[in-house]
């Protein structure tokens, strides 16, 4: 009953396709993402691990430069994507320029349009948008069985999710406006008795395309059956506060947090081990109140507990260790409860 781990999450949620790891900086989001992806891939499924964090450390974890290199297979079936948003933006904008030139058979883009493009590139939220679109992109392609997203720290992570909400409302609204404008055009034409051309508005088509992507992605990530939002936290005051605030903000967005992963929990045996120095025991004890707080506040949400490792989780070997803990935690809820001293 009290066994925990992602194994059970996947058992309970057979339709689960997307796992998103969010949380404060330095709590092990990227490690968890890498580990879960690794585990799923080792079971023979195609997995994409995608870091949306601009301080992406997937390269560090897999000890291989992945930044801006596209989808790289780092282990059998395990693909990793660390996008270079700036590069992506540059390419995207260039394609728009090309399209304008082709559409109107011009060599030079009109000044006000060019000004607009340049200003768009520099817009503060452009970076996030590009990352967001990359997420939409890989999911829309549907090449993988599972997608694991590593979100940027706190504010930006939530915003990335909020973006799904805003963007789909936005695209809905402008779609409505465009459609209404065309309706009105058609109405005027009908009153004039002009032959009614079946409207082939290219912009509407483009909008439909954008809308299709945004809305279906937004639907997907807000679908509790197919997407699991997971907060990673460590037994520290700030991490707990962050997690609470994140859950609150998620609820404001109408989303539900699927679970929390508790990372860096000192193995309880350390306390009983006579070989452990007082210093270490003190650290274990210092962690206790926070473990208790986590247990009390998030008991129903805890999906996995990762013990404090004796080394930095990098390299496939270390990832494998974390992966096993994530999949079936050696510390189950009972052990956790024991830790709280009740």
């Amino acid at each position, binding site marked *: 009953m009290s066994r925990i781990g992602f194994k059970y999450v996947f058992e309970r949620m057979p339709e689960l396709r997307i796992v998103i790891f969010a949380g404060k900086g330095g709590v092990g989001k990227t490690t968890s993402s890498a580990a879960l992806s690794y585990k799923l891939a080792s079971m023979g499924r195609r997995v994409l691990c995608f870091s949306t964090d601009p301080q992406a450390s997937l390269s560090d974890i897999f000890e291989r430069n992945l930044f801006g290199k596209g989808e790289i297979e780092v282990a059998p079936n395990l693909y990793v994507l660390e996008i270079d948003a700036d590069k992506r933006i540059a390419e995207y904008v260039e394609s728009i320029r090309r399209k304008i030139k082709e559409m*109107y058979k011009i060599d030079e883009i009109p000044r006000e349009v060019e000004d607009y493009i340049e200003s*768009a590139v520099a817009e503060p939220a452009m970076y996030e948008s590009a990352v967001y679109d990359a997420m939409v992109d890989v999911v829309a392609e549907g090449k993988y069985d599972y997608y694991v997203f590593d979100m940027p720290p706190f504010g930006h992570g939530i915003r990335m999710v909020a973006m799904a909400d805003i963007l789909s409302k936005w695209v809905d609204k*402008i779609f409505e406006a465009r459609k209404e*404008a065309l309706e009105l055009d058609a109405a*005027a034409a009908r009153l004039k008795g002009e032959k009614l051309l079946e409207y082939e508005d290219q912009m509407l088509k483009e909008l439909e395309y954008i809308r299709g992507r945004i809305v279906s992605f937004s639907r997907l990530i807000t679908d509790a059956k197919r997407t699991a939002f997971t907060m990673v936290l460590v037994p520290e005051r700030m991490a707990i506060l962050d997690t609470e605030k994140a859950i609150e903000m998620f609820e404001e967005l109408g989303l539900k947090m699927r679970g929390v992963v508790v990372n860096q929990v000192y193995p309880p045996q350390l306390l009983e081990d006579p070989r452990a120095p007082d210093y270490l025991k003190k650290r274990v004890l210092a962690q206790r109140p926070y473990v208790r707080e986590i247990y009390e506040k998030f008991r129903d949400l805890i999906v996995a507990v990762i013990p404090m490792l004796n080394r930095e989780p990098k390299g496939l070997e270390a990832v494998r260790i974390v992966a096993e803990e994530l999949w079936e935690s050696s510390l189950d809820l009972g052990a956790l409860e024991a830790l709280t001293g009740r």
Partner: protein
Amino acid sequence: MGERKGLGFLSRIKDAISEAVYGIALHGQVASIKRMKMYTEYLFMLMTIGDMMGIPIVPPYYTLRLLPYMVPNIKGWKLRMLRERDVTDIISG
């Protein structure tokens, strides 16, 4: 206009009358509908390329994708949107 020349006086009268009837019955409404469309377009443009008038509204990432189709409308849109209007402009129709 050129085509009509050969059609003779009577058919010219007929055309004139049917145009006048259209003017009485429908022109005003078509004008109102066009104006409504114009305002609807305001919203659309504001929400997409508002930055172009210094009104940043949403991150322009997806807007860029629409930009190519907007290119021919931008000038007219700016003119219409920024023209100062008075109540007496909108009485008719």
